[in-house]
């Protein structure tokens, strides 16, 4: 009850100060006319927003400089560094490149630039993992559980800037290779899911009738079962089939997740397809006597790129999270291959040390952070693309 009263008094105080802020702003004669009009037409909520923003700024200041909470400091530092780098990246894009790319960058929000930058970094890391990583992903060293930071006084080792795991494998190398495995497999799976989903979706839209009914009902049935549990079930069966052949397990996993995720793609492709099929140019093509493949690939598909591309980004995140989750549960990507889901699971117990030694707790957070960062980045880019494609429809 006390806590409730405390929050309530804060809310009331912010409200009052917001009103005062606006009132003062209206009374003061500002040098510029724009400011005068701005304060005159300011809704009360905007005034409150300004005060609320100030309170938040103070909270950030307090935890950063007075409480010195380690994780919070890392988060703020990361935020600032990423903001500055993406701003620089955006500025670079505005001045370098062709007329067209420069125009794209000029209209791009900072979040999208951040997303693109992160995706580029991940792509480079994954593709050139063998060159970039200092050690192999399966290489075992004698020193186990080295803490990140590289400072011997804090239990680190300059040879392993991000430390080693319980078996003595270099975490930096495993993080980089983990990107290659997790992101690479997720990418292949998503592409497969899209091939299946869009083909059936567009076919259903073009043919409609019984074909649409049959495929849609099958998809409904597949979607009715919770996805992760269904995937677990199928993977357990697949693991029994595959026996000790670990590569085969990975292939089965790709196919299973692709099929399960293609149901969502199917739904979207079908809906988008139906919107396009009713257009007069499709009717004109049909009346010309064009065959099905021309209709789908030359008439419908080019008009569905924007929503499909946006869905691709989102779907990639989901697939990627599903793989990480399956690996976390121990039936996804198999050791000794590095992957982020397994890394989180293996190092998870260290999170208990967060209060005494933030560096120890950072071990599982690195892999988790890598997953989170990519997901956020992809979503930023997708948001931007969705905004652009909807803006183009005038």
């Amino acid at each position, binding site marked *: 009850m006390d806590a409730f009263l405390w929050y309530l008094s804060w809310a009331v105080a912010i409200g009052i100060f917001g009103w005062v802020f606006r009132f003062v702003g209206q009374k003061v004669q500002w040098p510029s006319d724009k400011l005068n*009009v701005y304060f005159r037409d300011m809704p009360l909520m905007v005034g409150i927003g300004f005060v609320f923003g100030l309170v938040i700024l103070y909270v950030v200041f307090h935890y950063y400089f007075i409480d010195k909470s380690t994780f919070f400091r890392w988060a703020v530092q990361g935020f600032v560094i990423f903001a500055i780098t993406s701003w620089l990246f955006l500025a670079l894009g505005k001045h370098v490149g062709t007329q067209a790319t420069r125009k794209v960058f000029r209209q791009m929000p900072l979040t999208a630039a951040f997303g693109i930058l992160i995706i580029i970094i991940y792509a480079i890391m994954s593709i050139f993992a063998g060159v970039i990583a200092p050690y192999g992903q399966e290489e075992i060293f004698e020193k186990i559980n080295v803490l990140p930071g590289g400072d011997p006084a804090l239990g680190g080792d300059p040879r392993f800037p991000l430390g080693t795991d319980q078996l003595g494998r270099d975490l930096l190398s495993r993080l980089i290779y983990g990107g290659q495995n997790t992101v690479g497999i997720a990418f292949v799976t998503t592409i497969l899911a899209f091939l299946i989903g869009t083909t059936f979706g567009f076919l259903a839209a073009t043919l409609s009738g019984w074909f649409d009914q049959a495929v849609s009902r099958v998809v409904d049935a597949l979607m009715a079962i919770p996805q992760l549990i269904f995937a677990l079930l199928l993977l357990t069966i697949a693991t029994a089939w595959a026996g000790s052949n670990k590569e085969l397990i990975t292939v089965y996993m790709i196919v299973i997740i692709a099929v399960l995720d293609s149901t969502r793609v199917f739904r979207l492709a079908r809906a988008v397809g139906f919107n396009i099929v009713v*257009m*007069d140019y499709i009717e004109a093509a049909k009346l*010309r*006597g064009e065959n099905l493949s021309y209709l789908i690939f030359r008439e419908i598909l*080019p008009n569905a790129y924007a929503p499909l591309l946006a869905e691709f980004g989102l779907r990639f995140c989901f697939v990627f999270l599903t793989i990480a989750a399956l690996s976390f549960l121990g039936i996804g990507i198999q050791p000794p291959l590095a992957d982020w889901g397994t890394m989180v699971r293996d190092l998870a117990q260290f999170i208990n040390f967060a209060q005494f030694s933030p560096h120890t707790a950072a071990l599982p957070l690195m892999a988790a952070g890598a997953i989170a960062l990519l997901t956020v980045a992809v979503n930023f880019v997708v948001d931007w693309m969705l905004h652009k494609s909807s803006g183009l429809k005038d």
Partner: protein
Amino acid sequence: MNTGQLLVKIEKIVIQGRSDEQWLPIINSVDLHLNRGEVLGLIGESGAGKSTLGLAAMGFARDGCRIVSGTVEFDGIDLISADAQTKRSLLGSRIAYVAQSAAASFNPAHKIINQHTEAPIQHGISSRPESEKDAIELYRRLRLPTPDEIGFRYPHQVSGGQLQRAMTAMAMSCRPDLIIFDEPTTALDVTTQIEVLAAIRDIVKQFNTAAIYITHDLAVVAQMADRIKVLLKGDEVEESGTDSMLKDPKEDYTKSLWAVRSFTREEKPLASKEEMPVVRVRNVTAAYAKIPVLHDVSFDIHASRTVAVVGESGSGKSTVARCITGLLKPSQGSIEFDGVPLPADYRQRTVEQLKQAQMIYQMADTALNPRKRIREIIGRPVEFYLGLRGRKKEERVRELLDQIELDPDQFIDRLPSELSGGQKQRIGIARALAADPKFIICDEVTSALDQLVAEGILKLLARLQDSLGLAYMFITHDLATVRAISDEVVVMKDGRVVEAGGKTAMFTPPHHEYTSLLLSSVPEMDPNWLTELLEQRGVDNIGDAAIDRMNQA
């Protein structure tokens, strides 16, 4: 209220719109004055800035537009520097707005009368019961059927023309000093339009409301406005009283607008009975699922002739086209091409049969694939039907572009989004021509275009017919177009052919009852036309009311 006092004063207003990273002018320094109780007609083509100027009279600029300079005064209140509160108290209560599409402007989730009473209650002008009573009174004055009940329906339960009148009633709910009508009848059929026009004109006069009437249709504005202002690309062309503007336009542009309706061509003699028609529609009866749409429709289309199929929306004229193209299977009857019956389903027709009948669509926007370049749009049928490839295909595409009067070098690599409405429609024509057909269906090809552009398209179609001997089936609801281009006319109503014959015969009495209603509903340039018509036919014998009466008889 004292008529003649200045109500709206807009001076030297400049409005810009944002497009492609820069601000482009929409209105260049235009003045507008409006007295109390006066109706000002704003006319111009699309893109002339007439809607933007109309909205500026409310001190409002759309998203992506900004008022750069100039003044807007409403009854002495400066609307540009007025604060949000002042504007809010004016809009809805003293200034009201009637949009083009009433169907899109009403909230489909609420009953009409609840939306009607919202403004008076919000502005504290009257209580809910008072306002509801007033709404019913307004519905009665606007001659809506069953005024006591109609307000308690949802927007989808009343017809388009009735909804437009309900919207006018809503604008009147606070007895505003000014109403802005933005193309209120453009989306309506002619017979419905006339009802709405009569209702609007009456009510504006009864309450002595000032109005700005925005439209692209000269004949409509001639009925409604006291003064007319002509706009062209954001500039004022001229302004004067309706009578003098109609009789004696000063500027060339205005004269050309007036002259558009004069395009007609000679009616060709009817084809002889023995001659084989290109297309023969024989006793076609068709239905969508179980709902019958066509009943025993028959007519012939001969080579080098244009048959105009006329009727209102829902009369089944587009359905006939769907039967001819094979998109809809008739339940009875058949389509014959050069005397040979065509398979009912287009999928069973041969490529040669498909090639001979082509179609031009109403909305050029949806008829051209937005992701394809002109080269491919026109090139595909050339390749598909005539088997031309590479250089020969390119040559043929260029030849076709020449035929539709577009410069090949300039246009061949463009996307449809880089063309104007008229140019898009020309590409649609070129695509149909590319198949080298004998017969083309033109489905309302000019109804989405400005009058000057539409005239260009009609002239082009006429020229192509003369040089290539094409047979046209011209679907339209616009009788001016029929008069301009057709040789024969088929009038349709409720899926039946009501009357058919040569053009001259069709435009001379005696008519079928429905034909005469259609003909008399087409607005004419004479400003007294509406008054005279209402006297002649009676206020209750126009539009939906007249059709209901006809159906009962």
